[in-house]
């Protein structure tokens, strides 16, 4: 930033029309043009210099004179915004570890400033409070939490220093309690504050601005907070049943004596795990269960209510699938004979 300050200083001198430094101007003007693009306006520490020139004739000669240069320095405006970087609620499950909430912090002031970040997971108006693990800075700036790559944030030690308009992402990692209800939400919040100081708009910190000027609190109060939410959304299961028929003659017609093989596919979707999932299917009327025909994902099951997952009680088959994680399927087959 020092460079930029100096160069803009040159540029202002160039504009006085002093020919002797004209060749210094090209780079400086380019830099100035880019600095004008900042949302908050002229960079803090920029010198604004005004010189008037006059020309007149007296005694037959033309005389050019310059006024004194009047120089004022642009002070630093302290402004910041913070928003959640998650597209919606972060879907999670009971007992989940290191759940990532993403936030974006933008320096909307006109000078480089470092910002203190304070996470808060204990908020009113929500259903539960996750446990804070840590805050991590997206140090490789890819928008994704990379364990072991992104830097853990320690307040006061590595408060991110942001140039005007610069955006940084931070991740707040939390652990979810083990016994929340489906649909429970938790607020995860950060507060960020300019380290130079905060306060009512217009609060001035004399001499604390970039380039030795003042630092002045802007319309945001030089602090900002943002909230994201965690949502407990347990897994759901879908069950698809299909049938194939083999008749006594090698065909596929359903006649007395035909064997129907039913296939039940249970698919768990969403996130998390469904615990103690079981499939029960009554044997259709006019058909008879074929003894010892149950399989679970290709493995044979016995009909007795015993150690294996299968059981036929005379009217229905039942298969205990146990705990099934989201994204997994279980396939149960059994056979009946048409009477």
């Amino acid at each position: 930033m020092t460079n930029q300050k100096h160069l803009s200083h040159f540029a202002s001198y160039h504009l006085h029309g002093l020919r002797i430094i004209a060749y210094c101007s090209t780079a400086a003007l380019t830099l100035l043009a880019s600095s004008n693009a900042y949302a908050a306006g002229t960079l803090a520490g920029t010198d604004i210099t005004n010189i008037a020139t006059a020309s007149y004739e007296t005694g037959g000669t033309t005389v050019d004179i310059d006024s004194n240069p009047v120089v004022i320095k642009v002070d630093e405006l302290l402004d910041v915004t913070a928003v959640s970087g998650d597209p919606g609620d972060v879907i999670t499950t009971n007992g989940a570890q290191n759940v990532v909430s993403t936030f974006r912090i933008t320096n909307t002031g006109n000078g480089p400033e470092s910002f203190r970040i304070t996470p808060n997971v204990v908020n009113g108006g929500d259903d539960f409070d996750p446990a804070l693990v840590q805050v991590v800075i997206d140090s490789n700036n890819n928008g994704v939490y990379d364990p072991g790559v992104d830097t853990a944030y320690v307040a006061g030690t590595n408060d991110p220093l942001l140039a005007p308009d610069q955006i940084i992402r931070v991740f707040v990692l939390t652990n979810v309690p083990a016994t929340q209800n489906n649909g429970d939400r938790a607020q995860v919040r950060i507060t960020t504050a300019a380290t130079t100081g905060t306060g009512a708009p217009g609060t001035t910190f004399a001499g604390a601005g970039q380039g030795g000027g003042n630092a002045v609190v802007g319309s945001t109060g030089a602090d900002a907070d943002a909230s994201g939410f965690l949502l407990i959304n347990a897994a759901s299961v879908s069950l698809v049943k299909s049938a194939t028929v083999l008749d006594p003659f090698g065909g596929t017609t359903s006649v007395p004596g035909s064997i129907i093989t039913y296939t039940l596919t249970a698919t768990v979707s969403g996130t998390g795990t469904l615990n103690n999932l079981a499939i029960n299917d009554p044997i259709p009327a006019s058909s008879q269960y074929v003894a010892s025909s149950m399989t679970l994902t290709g493995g044979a099951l016995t009909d007795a209510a015993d150690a294996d997952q299968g059981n036929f009680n005379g009217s229905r088959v039942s298969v205990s699938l146990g705990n099934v994680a989201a994204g997994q399927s279980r396939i149960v087959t059994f056979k009946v004979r048409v009477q």
Partner: protein
Amino acid sequence: MNRIIKLCFSMILLAASSVPAMAAAPVELSSDVFIEKQEKRPDGSFSTVLAKPSMILPGDQLVFVVRYRNAGNKPATNFSVTNPIPAAITFSGTSDGAEVVSIDGGKSWGKLSQLRVNNADGSSRNALMTDVTHLKWQMNQMLAAGDAGKLIFRGVVK
């Protein structure tokens, strides 16, 4: 770059040090800047006051004042004052409206209402105050010995 920067600095210093020598010239020129501030009156209403610019932020309204005086004992003719608009300032008008302006760095001049800006696609539009790069006041009358005046323009910090 560093060497060039240093060179620039020394040249600036040279230029600055030549200013006092000009004081010997018959016509004197001085420049000053103020900030326009809203000040609360005791009755709660606001008045605009000019203050020394102790604090400058983007968006602030500045008032530049150029004073001239013929301190010699001979009249000066063809008297003109030129003021480039500082890069971080957007021009927002003069107090007398008597100026001509340049929107091309001082190459050509005219009344703002008569200047056009060429767009990249070949079309053109009327020049705006934001396009102004230089101001010039051309005095038609002689500046007699002892005559003085001031020129005022406003600008907004970008």
